[in-house]
Structure formats: structure tokens, C-alpha cells
């Protein structure tokens, strides 16, 4: 090699020193002279210039980092800028920059974890703060009635219409009462434009005084006090009166009544358990023809009733008084075993799992178990990220031992080293927190997950979050500092400088514990995710007692259905793909009418609350519900329309009906029916609830649903054909109707579960990914630590597989042990969640097997990456450099 080549090599070497932030140009000049002197010496000893350069470089290269650290440390210690804290921060930032690849892995893990924690806790806190915007929230409660039955307690959020007005007059503790009557469907017409609307209530005028739904514009303060007045939300107002002032304008309701718009409300906040688009004054409500009760009834459980207490009054003292009032007034009726309770507003959204929700989309609820599951996942993600962080740092500590040893030579005390490591962890956590906040903001901003809440809005939450994150930093930093302190104290400075500290003893145990913990969490999460998915699957595929797959439902107002039904049925049955058509009062989506029923040979005290549908002759043929005993309604028996009833098995057995030989029941306050048949128990409510007693009767009011059974599967053609037939039948004059595939509308009952599945799956995937990164890091670190041993074994002729097995035996054992342990734990925990469902999937061995397969695959994947590394490593190269 020529002289100029050597000079060029030296120049390159010198340039390489400039990347070390701790070295000043003057230091580099000095080192260059040192380097050249060394080369000169070696040449004098007889080496060629090239060999001398190589040897000098070899001897020198391992010292760069140490020198750099040493300079930085000595400058920080003696530097004039800033105090001790800023020194720590400065050195910490330099270290983060120097070990940038580890910094990225560290930050990635922490950012994902902190982002998940912020996202989930924001959602969960939002869920716990449902209805929190009402000024009177502490004093509002909903009236709930309870039926004690042998199979359990049935609870409904309903009260008779006479209860509300009686409460305000009789109890000074009660400040306000408001009643709501739901509206199934209603046509609101503005001029010639008609809209089918279903999210509305008839509401007492006190409703807007009790609840804080704010008026945007109004004709007066008492917007619901006059008959025939309606209040719209902003969105509906915009839909009905685009770009117009609508207060004072008229709307046609069901082509019968004129309503005057008296006010416009801001849209109902998403975190309200009551959801609506319009409110009609309660005085407008008329009891439909065919009902055997009026608004003075104490037996008609058909009205949502909310009570606002005086600020100083206690709900618990009034509750028994209300029940007594009810019982006194209802003494002539049959339902003596009904209890009346008050459910505080704060408990409605998350505490209504056991309460039937007969009104579907108008009322929202969620279960605490769902929220706790999510919090658990967030916590696990944080733990995994913490494990990874500690792992990676302990592994890289090996590389930093030289630096730490040098700093001890230079007089750094243990506590300062401790503080240095701590400040690095805190800085890491801070950076990750900022990124995590950004990620969670983006998730909420762009609706990337089915969370309907606002992002962080409360300052106290942000403060709590800040404290939590600082805590995380301190905990992580302390663990690493303690682990590395042991390593530092137990080794001599010289061995530190030579990086000879081996991990063993407590450090090895810590590593194994972390490995096991990581496998346990990954396995547990995989099992939990599978159980949630299986439950959703179970709900979607459970035999509901009827066949929802081939049914289209048409719903409208009673008038619009009544006008066109007969012709539609006739035309539809001529089509080959349509098998059967029936009118009915409800379409399985959770809602049903209900009333007390008892056998004629029993006393009214033995009544049971029975849900009922009014249906047509072809109801069974259309829905596929099985007849177990007797017969169904027949066109050949005209008396069926008024005097026959069909029960489900539960109703029959509750009343002790086993044979059908002329048994009679008294239903709905005095009407006598002959039981002609018994049908299979079918799920007319969601699977959260028990089926309960159920009856089918022929229509006594005008029905507003039509079910159509078709032969082929879901197709746009079938849908279009039915829509066309309906339009023809109504001569295109008809008011708007909703046409939907029944199974699709049923799936909306499980929206919360489907959302939960999306969220659980997303976060479990994250957790599993983080676990994999951690496992990869752990095995990589253990291979790195044993690299000399591996190389010697390779030279002695050992194969890569046997090396991997020997190095990663603990990984494999941990994987197997953790999977076995994760199974019972996840079944135990998911059992709590599954208990929320009256009908649920039973976790089985398949979950365990699939989890085991998954975890072992992850382990094998990790090991195969390491196998590749070991196999393609030249042992001579490593041993020479070492």
C-alpha cells in the first residue's frame, strides 16, 4: 500500500471520529497524533504500513464510544452551562441519539402503549360520564318496574301513565316528573315532502326543564306545553326545512294532524342515553284505537317516567312511597307482584344490562364488563411495553457498561449514575407520551375506531394522565437503574471497561420472569380475543327459533301499511321467489307489546307478564317458527281473529298448560282467549335477555310491519323487486316505508359487541405484536450475550439447530408454561364478561389449542430469525473482534 493510500485511510478514520458528539476538534487532533504514533511504533517493530494501520485501528475502535462518553461526562460534570438537571437531560438526549436504533424500538413500543392507554381511557371515561352534561344529573332517576318470576326478575323501564301526574302532586320531595311515550314510526310532511321518522317521543313539557337539552331557537320558554306542538333537533330541522327558519312553521303528522314547530334543539349529545330527533307535546298523544286503557290507567306499563328530586331529598326514602302509591291505585288489577324502583340517572347507561330495552335505538346502554375488559387490555399493553423497555435497556446496558465504568473512574457517584438512567427513561416516556397523545387524537379525530366520544376535554383527566405518565417513567427508569446498578456494583471497573460482565444470578431470573410474563400476556390476549370473537359469532349464528336469513321487513306507519297491504300480498305471492307474506306488529328487533295473562281457572294474582305480537295467518310460514302442539290461526276458523291465542313454550309451562283441550286465558285486562297452539320459544329480544313468556294473537289494531319470506339469498334483485311491488301496490301514492333485510336490522342489536370486537381485536393485535418484538429482542440479547460461546461451539462443529435449542430453551419452556397457565386465567376472566349474556358461548378446548398453536408459531418464528443469524455468522470474525 502506498503512502498516499495510508494517508487517505487515516483521514477516513479521523472523519469517523467526528460523529461522536463528545469529541471536540482539539480532542480529535490529539487522538490523531496518538494514532499515528502507534502506527509509527508498529512499523518500527517490523509490520507493514497496512498491517500497522489495521492493528492500530482494531485496538482503537473499541475505545471510541468510551472516550466519547468519558468526554461528555467529564464536560458535563465540570461544564459551566446549567445545573445538574440540565446536565442529566443533555447527556440523556445524547445517549438516545447515539443508540438511535434502540431508541426507535423503545419509543415505538412506548408510543404504541401510551397511545393505546390514552385512547382506551378516554373512551372509558367518556362512557362512565354518560349523561354527565345534565345540570340536574344528581337528582334525576328513572322509574323501573320489577316482576318477580320463578325464572328470575324481569325489569322494565316503564310505568303506567297515571303515575307521573300523581307523583308531582303527592310528594313534596319530588320536584318534577316527566313522561315519555315512544313513537314507532311517523310521517312528518313539510308541504309535499314526506319523511318517515322514528326517533321521537311524546314528552311532557317538564322534559326540557329536567334535562339539559338546550334550545337553539324557540317561540317561547314553554315549547312543549301546548297540544300539537313539536320541537326538532337541528339536524332534523335542516332536513325538513333546508336553510329556512322553521320555528312557527307547520308540519303534517301522519297526514292527520298539523303540528307547529315551537323550538329547535341543539343535536342530542352522543353521550346521552336518550336519543331522539324530535319531541311532540304529550297532550298531542292519543291512545290508539283498540287499546283497552287510557291515560288514567294504573295498569298500562307503557310510559318512560323520569323523576327529579328536590336537591335535599333522598331517592331511597321516596322509593317505597311511590311503590305504595302504585299498589294502592292498582289494587283492582292483577299485577300485585310488581315492585317500583328508582334508577339514578348516573346508573342508567352502564347499569341497565338486566333491564329490558323495549325501544331499541332510542336508548343506549353499555356494560361495565366491556369497559373493564378494555381497561385490562390497555393495562396489559402498557405492561408488555414496560417489559420490552426494561429488557432492551438491560440488554443494551451490556454495551454501556464501559461508559458507566469509565464514569465511575472519573468519580461519578452511584446515585448520579442512577439519576442518569432514570432521566433517560423519563425523557423516553415523555417523548412517547407526546407521540401517543398525537396518535390517540388522530384516532378520535378521524374515527378510526368505533368510539363516538370527544377526545380529551377535561383538564383534570389530562392532569391525571400526566401524573400517570410521569409515574410510568419513574417506575421504568427505577427498574432499569436498579438492575444495572447491581451489574455495575458487582463488577470491577476494569472488567466493566472490558465489558466482561456477564448476566447471571438475579438478572437472569428477572429476564426469565419477564420472558414468562410476556408469553403469559400474549397467550392470555390471544385466548381472550378468540373468546370475544366466538361470542359474536355465537350471537350471529345462534338458532333464534326463527329463520331471519330469508326475510325482508317492510315497516311504515299503520295507515301506509294498511292501505297497501292487501294488494301487495296478492301481487307478491304470484312471484315465484316469494314464499309467504304476513303483517305483524313487531319485527324481532327487541320491541314487543306486553300485558298480564292468567288462566281462567286461576286468580288474577297468578298473572304473568307476557309479551305479545299481533300477527297474520302466515306468520309461522313466513318466519319458520315451529309449531310444537295444536294448530296456528286459520282462515277457515273466523273466530281465531278475536278469540284464539297461540303461546310459546315458556308461557304455556308458566301457566301449567301441557295439553290443549280448550284451555282459556284471560289476557290484557279481561279479554278471554282460547289457547289453540304452542310454538317453539323464539328469541324476540336480543341474546342479552331471557326469552320469557310470549303470546301471538290476530291483529286488533292496525299493524305497521310486513314480513316477506323469499327463496334466494340476499340480493339486490330481490330487494328491488319487493320495493317495486310495494310501490305498485300503493300506486306510488304511498307514504315512505323502510324496506330492510331482517338479519341486517337484527345485527344492529349487537352493535356494541361488534364494536367491542373491533376494538379488542385491534388492541390485542398491537399487544401481540409488541410481545413478538419483545421476544425477538430477548432472544437476540441472549444470543448476543452468548455469542462467544456460540462461536466456540460452531467451531467445534455444533449445528445451528442444537445451538438455538440450547440458547433458547428457556424461551420454549416459557412459551409452553405460559400457554397452559393463560388458558384457565382467560376463561375465568372472560367468564365474567360472558355472564352478561343470557345466552352465551362456552369456552372450549379449541381456544386453548389455537392459542397454543399461535404462541408456539410466534416462538418458532422468532427462533428461525435467530437461527438465520447464527447460521450466517462467521465465528472466526466474531472471536477475532472480541
Amino acid at each position, binding site marked *: 500500500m502506498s503512502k498516499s493510500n495510508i494517508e487517505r485511510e487515516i483521514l477516513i478514520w479521523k472523519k469517523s471520529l467526528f460523529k461522536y458528539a463528545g469529541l471536540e476538534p482539539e480532542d480529535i487532533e490529539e487522538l490523531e497524533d496518538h494514532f499515528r504514533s502507534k502506527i509509527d511504533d508498529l512499523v518500527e517493530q517490523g509490520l507493514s504500513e497496512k498491517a500497522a494501520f489495521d492493528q492500530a485501528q482494531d485496538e482503537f475502535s473499541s475505545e471510541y464510544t468510551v*472516550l466519547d462518553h468519558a468526554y461528555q461526562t467529564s464536560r458535563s460534570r465540570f461544564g459551566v452551562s446549567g445545573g445538574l438537571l440540565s446536565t442529566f437531560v443533555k447527556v440523556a438526549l445524547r445517549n438516545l441519539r447515539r443508540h438511535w436504533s434502540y431508541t426507535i424500538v423503545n419509543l415505538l413500543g412506548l408510543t404504541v402503549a401510551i397511545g393505546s392507554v390514552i385512547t382506551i381511557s378516554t373512551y372509558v371515561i367518556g362512557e362512565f360520564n354518560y349523561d354527565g352534561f345534565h345540570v340536574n344529573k344528581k337528582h334525576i332517576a328513572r322509574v323501573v318496574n320489577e316482576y318477580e318470576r320463578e325464572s328470575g326478575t324481569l325489569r322494565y323501564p316503564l310505568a303506567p301513565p297515571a303515575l307521573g301526574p300523581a307523583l308531582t302532586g303527592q310528594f313534596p320531595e319530588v320536584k318534577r316528573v316527566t313522561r315519555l311515550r315512544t313513537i314507532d314510526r311517523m310521517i312528518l310532511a313539510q308541504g309535499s315532502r314526506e319523511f318517515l321518522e322514528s326517533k321521537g317521543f311524546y314528552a311532557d313539557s317538564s322534559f326540557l326543564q329536567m334535562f339539559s337539552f338546550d334550545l337553539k331557537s324557540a317561540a317561547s320558554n314553554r315549547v312543549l306545553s301546548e297540544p300539537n306542538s313539536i320541537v326538532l333537533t337541528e339536524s332534523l330541522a335542516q332536513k325538513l326545512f333546508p336553510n329556512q327558519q322553521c320555528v312557527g312553521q307547520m308540519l303534517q303528522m301522519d297526514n292527520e294532524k298539523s303540528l307547529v314547530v315551537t323550538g329547535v334543539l341543539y343535536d342530542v349529545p352522543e353521550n346521552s342515553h336518550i336519543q331522539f330527533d324530535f319531541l311532540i307535546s304529550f297532550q298531542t298523544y292519543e291512545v290508539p284505537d283498540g287499546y283497552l286503557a287510557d291515560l288514567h290507567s294504573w295498569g298500562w306499563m307503557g310510559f318512560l317516567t323520569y323523576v327529579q328530586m328536590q336537591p335535599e331529598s333522598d331517592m331511597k326514602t321516596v322509593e317505597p312511597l311511590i311503590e305504595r302509591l302504585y299498589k294502592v291505585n292498582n289494587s283492582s288489577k292483577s299485577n300485585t307482584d310488581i315492585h317500583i324502583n328508582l334508577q339514578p340517572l348516573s346508573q342508567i347507561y352502564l347499569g341497565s344490562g338486566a333491564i329490558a330495552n323495549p325501544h331499541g335505538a332510542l336508548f343506549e346502554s353499555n356494560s361495565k364488563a366491556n369497559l373493564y375488559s378494555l381497561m385490562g387490555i390497555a393495562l396489559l399493553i402498557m405492561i408488555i411495553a414496560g417489559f420490552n423497555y426494561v429488557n432492551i435497556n438491560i440488554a443494551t446496558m451490556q454495551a454501556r457498561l464501559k461508559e458507566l465504568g469509565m464514569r465511575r473512574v472519573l468519580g461519578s457517584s452511584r446515585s448520579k449514575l442512577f439519576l442518569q438512567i432514570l432521566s433517560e427513561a423519563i425523557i423516553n416516556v415523555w417523548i412517547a407520551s407526546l407521540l401517543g397523545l398525537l396518535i390517540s387524537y388522530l384516532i378520535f379525530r378521524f374515527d378510526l375506531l368505533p368510539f363516538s366520544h370527544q377526545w380529551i376535554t377535561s383538564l383534570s383527566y389530562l392532569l391525571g394522565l400526566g401524573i400517570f405518565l410521569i409515574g410510568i417513567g419513574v417506575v421504568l427508569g427505577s427498574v432499569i437503574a436498579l438492575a444495572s446498578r447491581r451489574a455495575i456494583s458487582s463488577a*470491577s*471497573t476494569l472488567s466493566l471497561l472490558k465489558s466482561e460482565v456477564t448476566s447471571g444470578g438475579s438478572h437472569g431470573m428477572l429476564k426469565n420472569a419477564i420472558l414468562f410474563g410476556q408469553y403469559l400476556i400474549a397467550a392470555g390476549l390471544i385466548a381472550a380475543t378468540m373468546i370475544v370473537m366466538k361470542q359474536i359469532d355465537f350471537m350471529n349464528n345462534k338458532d333464534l327459533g326463527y329463520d331471519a336469513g330469508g326475510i325482508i321487513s317492510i315497516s311504515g306507519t299503520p295507515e301506509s301499511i294498511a292501505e297497501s297491504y292487501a294488494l301487495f300480498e296478492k301481487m307478491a305471492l304470484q312471484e315465484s321467489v316469494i314464499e309467504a307474506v304476513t303483517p305483524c306488529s313487531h319485527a324481532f328487533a327487541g320491541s314487543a307489546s306486553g300485558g298480564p295473562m292468567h288462566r281462567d281457572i286461576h286468580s288474577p294474582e297468578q298473572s304473568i307478564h307476557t309479551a305479545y305480537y299481533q300477527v297474520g295467518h302466515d306468520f309461522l310460514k313466513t318466519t319458520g317458527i315451529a309449531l310444537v302442539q295444536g294448530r296456528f290461526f286459520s282462515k277457515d276458523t273466523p273466530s281465531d281473529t278475536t278469540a284464539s291465542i297461540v303461546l310459546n313454550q315458556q308461557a304455556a309451562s308458566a301457566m301449567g298448560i301441557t295439553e290443549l283441550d280448550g284451555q282459556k286465558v284471560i289476557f290484557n285486562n279481561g279479554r278471554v282467549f282460547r289457547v289453540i297452539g304452542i310454538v317453539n320459544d323464539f328469541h324476540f329480544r336480543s341474546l342479552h335477555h331471557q326469552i320469557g313468556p310470549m303470546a301471538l294473537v290476530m291483529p286488533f289494531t292496525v299493524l305497521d310491519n310486513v314480513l316477506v319470506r323469499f327463496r334466494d339469498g340476499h340480493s339486490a334483485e330481490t330487494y328491488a323487486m319487493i320495493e317495486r311491488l310495494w310501490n305498485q301496490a300503493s300506486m306510488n301514492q304511498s307514504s315512505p316505508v323502510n324496506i330492510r333485510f331482517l338479519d341486517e336490522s337484527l345485527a344492529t342489536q349487537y352493535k356494541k359487541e361488534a364494536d367491542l370486537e373491533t376494538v379488542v381485536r385491534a388492541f390485542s393485535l398491537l399487544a401481540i405484536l409488541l410481545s413478538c418484538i419483545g421476544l425477538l429482542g430477548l432472544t437476540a440479547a441472549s444470543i448476543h450475550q452468548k455469542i462467544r460461546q456460540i462461536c466456540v461451539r460452531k467451531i467445534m462443529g455444533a449445528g445451528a439447530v442444537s445451538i438455538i435449542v440450547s440458547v433458547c430453551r428457556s424461551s420454549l419452556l416459557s412459551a409452553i408454561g405460559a400457554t397452559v397457565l393463560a388458558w384457565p386465567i382467560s376463561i375465568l376472566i372472560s367468564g365474567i364478561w360472558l355472564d352478561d349474556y343470557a345466552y352465551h358461548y362456552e369456552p372450549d378446548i379449541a381456544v386453548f389449542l389455537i392459542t397454543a398453536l399461535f404462541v408456539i408459531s410466534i416462538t418458532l418464528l422468532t427462533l428461525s430469525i435467530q437461527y438465520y443469524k447464527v447460521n450466517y455468522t462467521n465465528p472466526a470474525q466474531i472471536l477475532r473482534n472480541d
Partner: protein
Amino acid sequence: MFNKELIGASTVPLILTVLLSGENYGYELIKKVKMLSNGKLEWSEAMLYPVLHRLERDGFIHSKWHQLENGRKRKYYSLSDLGRSELAAKKSDWIEMMQLFSELWNLKPAV
């Protein structure tokens, strides 16, 4: 090879002592100490230079750049007055320590 405590304690007095005989530079200091200790004490540049710079900052030694004949620049260190008195103090400490060991172990003076 000496243990870490001994190396740590002896580095500064050794550097000051070598500089007592005249100004010197890093590479030569390492070589000299290695030779005098028969190879038992082999400082690395990573350890030496930070200590030299610290001694300079503390005022025990001065440094000066020299231009060599071949054009290279070299940084030489020399003892300051403060360094001399520091060395004197350290020297008496070490002599007392040696005497203590000599007495305890009944050693005869080497010379």
C-alpha cells in the same frame, strides 16, 4: 495486572510523577508507564485522555501544541506549580502507605 482500586488511585500520581521529569504527550505517557511497570500497567487512551484533560482543568498541568518536523501537531503536557504541590502531597501519602506496609510485612527496603 493490578486491581481496579489500585489503578484508580494511582493514575493521577503516576501521571504527575512522569511529568515531573519534563513535558510529555499522551502516547509516550502510556508507553513509559507500561515499560516501567514491566507491562503490568497498560493504560488505554480512552482512560488516559479524559484524566489528562481533567487535571488540566483543575490546574495541575498545562498543555501546549508543538509543531513537529514532519509537520504533525502534538499536544504536550507539563506540570504546573499547583501540580507540583499536589504531587508532593500525594507522594507523602504513598510513602507513608509504603512504610506502613513495609513495617507490617517486615520488608527490607528494595534499594
